[in-house]
């Protein structure tokens, strides 16, 4: 904890904490996407998977115990990630004294320029997503415990599908720059592997995008119902 605090004191340290928490979130995203693909193998399989998450380790661990530990770790990662991002954003804003009259864009990519606002959009999406498919607060026909039903009903609406697709595109951009950036931030730079960093980031980011959208698209087109 003391080392975390020490890292947090320096600007580069904050970035390192952002990179580590970003990696935790990325790990979650991968698991979540793979879990969602289980929709394709039918209601029993998908609901059993949801059940498994809630009862992992039961009776050794109380009902939903594991899930809550998991949620707390994720929440902690999101807070650390966002708090560092906002603080660094603040100092960087005040470091620039006025804008240039003429500018040429010299940055590496569109994704690199949209990390901050893109991140804010992702955070808003996460809130909506939890209210939608976890608590059901904003769901049209939520049945507690029937995760498959909730999923399929949701994506029968093209508006919801479109909304999720936009959010996934934002995630794809954030991860494209993030996964490249993480190698810089953690100092994993090596002349031999550096040329691989961009392609790997593209493949992973696109993989996440496609993986998340296959099941909803199949629901919307009626292949899965």
């Amino acid at each position: 904890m003391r080392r975390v605090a020490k890292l947090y004191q320096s600007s580069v340290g904050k970035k390192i904490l952002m990179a580590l928490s970003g990696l935790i979130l990325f790990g979650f995203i991968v698991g979540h996407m793979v879990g969602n693909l289980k929709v394709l193998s039918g209601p029993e399989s998908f609901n059993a998977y949801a059940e498994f998450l809630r009862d992992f380790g039961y009776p050794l661990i109380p009902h939903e115990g594991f899930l809550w530990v998991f949620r707390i770790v994720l929440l902690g990662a999101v807070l650390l990630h966002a708090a560092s991002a906002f603080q660094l954003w603040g100092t960087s804003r005040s470091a620039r004294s006025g804008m240039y009259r003429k500018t040429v864009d010299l940055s590496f990519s569109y994704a690199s320029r949209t990390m901050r606002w893109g991140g804010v959009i992702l955070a808003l999406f996460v809130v909506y997503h939890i209210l939608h498919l976890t608590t059901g607060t904003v769901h049209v026909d939520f049945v507690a415990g029937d995760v498959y039903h909730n999923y399929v009903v949701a994506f029968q609406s093209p508006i919801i599908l479109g909304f999720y697709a936009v959010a996934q595109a934002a995630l794809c951009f954030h991860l494209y720059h993030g996964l490249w950036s993480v190698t810089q931030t953690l100092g994993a730079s090596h002349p031999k592997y550096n040329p691989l960093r961009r392609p790997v980031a593209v493949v992973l980011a696109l993989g996440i995008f496609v993986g998340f959208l296959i099941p909803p698209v199949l629901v919307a087109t009626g292949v899965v119902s």
Partner: protein
Amino acid sequence: MKLKLHIWRQSAPDVRGGFETIAADNVSAHMSFLEMLDVVNEGLIAEGKEPVAFDHDCREGICGTCGMMINGNPHGPWEGTSACQLHMRAFQDGDEIWIEPWRARAFPVLKDLVVDRSAFDRIIQAGGYVSIRTGSAPDANAVPIGKEWADEAFDAAACIGCGACVAACPNASAMLFTAAKVTQLARLPQGQPERYERVLSMVDTHDSEGFGNCTNHGACQNACPKGISVDYIAQLNRDLFKATLMDRPDEAAV
């Protein structure tokens, strides 16, 4: 050729500046950009006006003194070229050119295109040196250094401290400069004893001077007249991470 220049004029640090439009009618394609400004200044002086202040020294791309935003490009449109090495053949008759000073809180404008870059000096003072007794020059090869390491140290040492990286960075971060200086010494045996204290102290000074935080945009690398690579920033990050985790007692008080 004839050019229309829009040059940032500001008489003193705390005075509001603005663009002045000046016609440059006698420009030869063989002039360097700074020679073109010299000719403009002679014209201004002849008219009894204040010449445009700009920084320059070697005019051969090695000292890092010159530097200005030329149409939104630090040092102008040529890749790997400082403003003094830019030639007017990069432009065409009738072009409009916007010339602005570096804009960063850590680089306050002193006059017109001249900014105060002493923040870089203070980053160097924080650790960009080795405190060894130098004595007389050692024999060549007395201290063996691998070819790759020597090459990397040499490439990092190419940084001339011009500040284009800060000027180009949307965060006004000086990470490319700081990383070049950190890596140059981290790659050499002489730099090892102070390696980790150096990175902590240089990054601390970088922050307290009011530079922003790197988001791995890469604008610095594209703007740098010396081709300094963002790979050095990864090296700096790694050294800082290690330095913090090593948790040596002498920095516990920091």
